[in-house]
Each structure stands twice: as structure tokens, then as C-alpha cells.
């Protein structure tokens, strides 16, 4: 039990250290660096041209599709990992079950492939 808690204390410490460094570095940096803002400095950079329109443009829906694909396949690992850990201790049927599970996912992938979700044709 101690080990369990200690492990996560370490993880917490790492996270805290991770947060601490940027905070410290940026604070120190603020003391060191100059601060002379002008209007030109604050414009959006578009390779030297006058910026046109808003930066937060509507982007291609394709990104969403990839996000969807990611969600599905990443969640798969939630089942895949425990299965992988326990694989050696269980019988043949577990292989069949996972074959069915993954098989269905592969069909999903084929579907997306065939429906040209995976095809990238512009930005």
C-alpha cells in the first residue's frame, strides 16, 4: 500500500516540477527581458504582408474525421491492454474474442478507407 501511494506521490512531484519550471523560467525571464511594445510588433505575422481577415478560420472538416477515427481506435486500447496483460493466463477463447473485436475494428477501418476518409486532398 505504501508503495502504491509513494508511486503516485512521485508522479505528482514530477507534474508539479513540470509546472514549476515554466513558471519560474518565465518569471525570471520577465525580469531579464526588455519590454518595449509597439503596434507593429503586436500585429499578426503573415510573412510581412498586412494580415488579412481573422486567423481563426474555418478549417477542413477532414481534421474532425481524423479525430473521430482516433477516438475510436484509441479507445480500442482500453480493451486491448488489459487483454494483452492477461493473455497468457487465459484460454484459447480469449484469442477468438479479441479476434472478433479487432476484426470488427478492422472492418471499420476498411469502411473508412473505402469511404475515402483517409484520403487527404487539400490543406
Amino acid at each position, binding site marked *: 500500500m505504501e508503495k502504491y501511494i509513494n508511486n503516485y506521490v512521485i508522479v505528482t512531484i514530477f507534474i508539479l516540477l513540470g509546472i514549476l519550471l515554466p513558471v519560474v523560467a518565465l518569471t525570471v525571464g520577465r525580469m531579464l527581458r526588455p519590454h518595449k511594445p509597439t503596434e507593429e510588433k503586436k500585429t499578426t505575422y503573415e510573412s510581412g504582408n498586412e494580415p488579412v481577415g481573422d486567423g481563426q478560420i474555418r478549417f477542413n*472538416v477532414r481534421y*474532425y474525421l481524423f*479525430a*473521430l477515427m482516433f*477516438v*475510436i481506435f*484509441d*479507445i480500442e486500447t*482500453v*480493451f486491448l491492454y*488489459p487483454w494483452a496483460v492477461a493473455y497468457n493466463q487465459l484460454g484459447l477463447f480469449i484469442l477468438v474474442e479479441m479476434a472478433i473485436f479487432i476484426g470488427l475494428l478492422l472492418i471499420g477501418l476498411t469502411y473508412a478507407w473505402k469511404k475515402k476518409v483517409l484520403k487527404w486532398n487539400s490543406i
Partner: protein
Amino acid sequence: MLSSYLTLAAILFCIGLYGALVKRNAVVVLLSIELMLNAVNLNLVAFSKYGAVPALSGQVFTLFTIAVSAAEAAVGIAVLIALFRARGTVNVDEFDEMRR
């Protein structure tokens, strides 16, 4: 120990429910639903570890919940994209095609 988890879960759930019912932005609505589902997960895991009758099935349940909610979110987003293409907005108040 348990009660703090439960309280946190309940608060998350209420925030989620509030967001799902009140928020105007469709994406935020979907996010709120995910929040509710995560509150459930928190509950389940807390119970499976610290509950009156600790049992592993709660964590198994959580795995299923996570997977299913991911699928739900995927479908939700897909539907929202289709809707956005058709209507050009993600404002929930404007989804009133059928009330007219």
C-alpha cells in the same frame, strides 16, 4: 475518502447536466455530456476501491463506459458536422427547423 470522491463526482455531474441543458454551443453541450459520463466513471472507480463492498466489477464497468461514451461522442460529433454543413451554425437555439 469515499465521500470526497462522491461529492466531486456529484458536482461534476451537476455541472455537466447544467451545461447540457443550458449551454447554447452544441459542442459545449456534447462536452457537458462527456463530463456527466466522467462523473459516472469517477463514482464507479471510487466505489470499486473504497466502497462498502469493494469489487472489481466497477472498474470493468468503467472500461465499458469509457469505450461506449467515446463511440457516443464520435457519433455526436459526426452528427454535429452534418448538421453544421446543413445549417451553418452550432448554436443550439437555432436548431428549430421542426418547430416552425
